[in-house]
C-alpha cells in the first residue's frame, strides 16, 4: 500500500482534462484510469468501463459526472462495494442536482427526517 490508490475519472472532456492536469492520469499498457465520454460514446462502453474500473483494486475513488451517472444509474444501483467509492460530481454543462444523488437522498432523508 505504499503507492496509494488511484483516482479514476469518467466524465466529459472538460472534466477529464481538468483532473488530468491536476495529475490523476495514469496510463499504462493495460489501460488508463479515465474515460472521456463524448456525444457519440456508447452507453455500453461507459458501463463496461465502469465495471472494469470498479473491479480494479488499485483504484480508491471513481469520480463520475452526474449526467453520466444518471445514464448508468441501473449499474450504480447494483453497485454496493465501499471501495472504490463512487463520487458523483457536477459537469460543466449540467449543474449539480442533489436530488439525483443517492447519497444526498440519504443525507437529506436523514437530516430532514431526523431534524437537525
Amino acid at each position, binding site marked *: 500500500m505504499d503507492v496509494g*490508490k488511484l483516482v479514476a475519472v469518467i466524465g466529459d472532456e472538460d472534466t477529464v482534462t481538468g483532473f488530468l*492536469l491536476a495529475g490523476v492520469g495514469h496510463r499504462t499498457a493495460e489501460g488508463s484510469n479515465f474515460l472521456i465520454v463524448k456525444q457519440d460514446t456508447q452507453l455500453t462502453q461507459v458501463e463496461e468501463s465502469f465495471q472494469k474500473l470498479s473491479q480494479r483494486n488499485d483504484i480508491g475513488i471513481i469520480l463520475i459526472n452526474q449526467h453520466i451517472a444518471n445514464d448508468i444509474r441501473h449499474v450504480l444501483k447494483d453497485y454496493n462495494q*465501499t471501495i472504490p467509492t463512487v463520487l458523483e460530481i457536477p459537469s460543466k454543462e449540467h449543474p449539480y442536482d442533489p436530488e439525483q444523488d443517492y447519497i444526498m437522498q*440519504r443525507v437529506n432523508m436523514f437530516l430532514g427526517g431526523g431534524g437537525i
Partner: protein
Amino acid sequence: MADVPPTRMNQQIFKGKKKAAEGGHKLLKKKADALKVKFRDYAKAIAETKSSMTGDSSNAFFSMTQAEYAAGNFKQKVAEGSMTARVRVGAGVDNVAGVKLPVFTKYDTGAAADNQSLGLVGGGKKIQNVREKFTDLLEMLIKLASLQTSFQTLDEALKVTNRRVNALENVTIPKIEGILGYIARELDELEREDFTRLKLVQGKKEIEIKREAAQKAKEAAKIMVSGQARPKSNDADITAAFDANDDEDVVF
C-alpha cells in the same frame, strides 16, 4: 416455549440471560446513539461539502474556459501519451465507536508534471491556473469521498446496531421474560397440584381409618358371636391392609 422444562434450574439460567440481554441492550443503545451523532455530523459535512462543491467545480470549469480562450484547443493534447499518476490517495482507517471508517488522504507521488510546457506560445499561465483549480477541487473531492464512504459505512453499521437494539428490545428480552413467566407459572401450578392432592389423600385416609375401625369393631363382634365367618374376614383384611400401607408408603 414449551421445550424449556419449567425447572428451577432453568429459571436461574434465564434470569441470567435476561440480565445479559438488558446490559447488551443498554450498551448497544449507547453505541447507536454515538453512531447517530457521528452520522449526523457526516451527513451535515457531506451536505455542506456537496453544496460548496458546486461553486468550486464551476470555478474550476470556468478556469478551463479561460484557458481555452487564451491557449486555443489544448484539451486533446492532455489526454494523449502515456502518463503516471502524480496524485494518489492513501487509505487510512478511522475508528468511531468500534466501527472502522476508511479515510482517503491525498498523496503526491512527487512525479514531475506531464505536459509542463503546455501553452508555451500563449496561455501557459491560464493552464497553470486550471491545474491549481482542479487540484483544489480534487482535494475537496477526496475529502468528500472519505466522508461519503464513512457515511455509507456508518449507515450500514448504524442499521446493524439498530437492528440489534430492536431485536433485543422487541424480541429477545420479551421472549426471555415470557419464558421466565412461564416457568414461574408452571412451578406455582405444580405446587398447587401437590397441595390439593395431599388434601385429597388425607381426606380419603380419614374415611378409610374410620371404616377400618368400624370393620374391626364388627369383626371383633362377629368373632365374638361365631367362629364360622373367620376365613372371609381374613381375605378382606389382607387387601385393605395392603392398600393402606401402599398409600402411606408412596406419600410419606
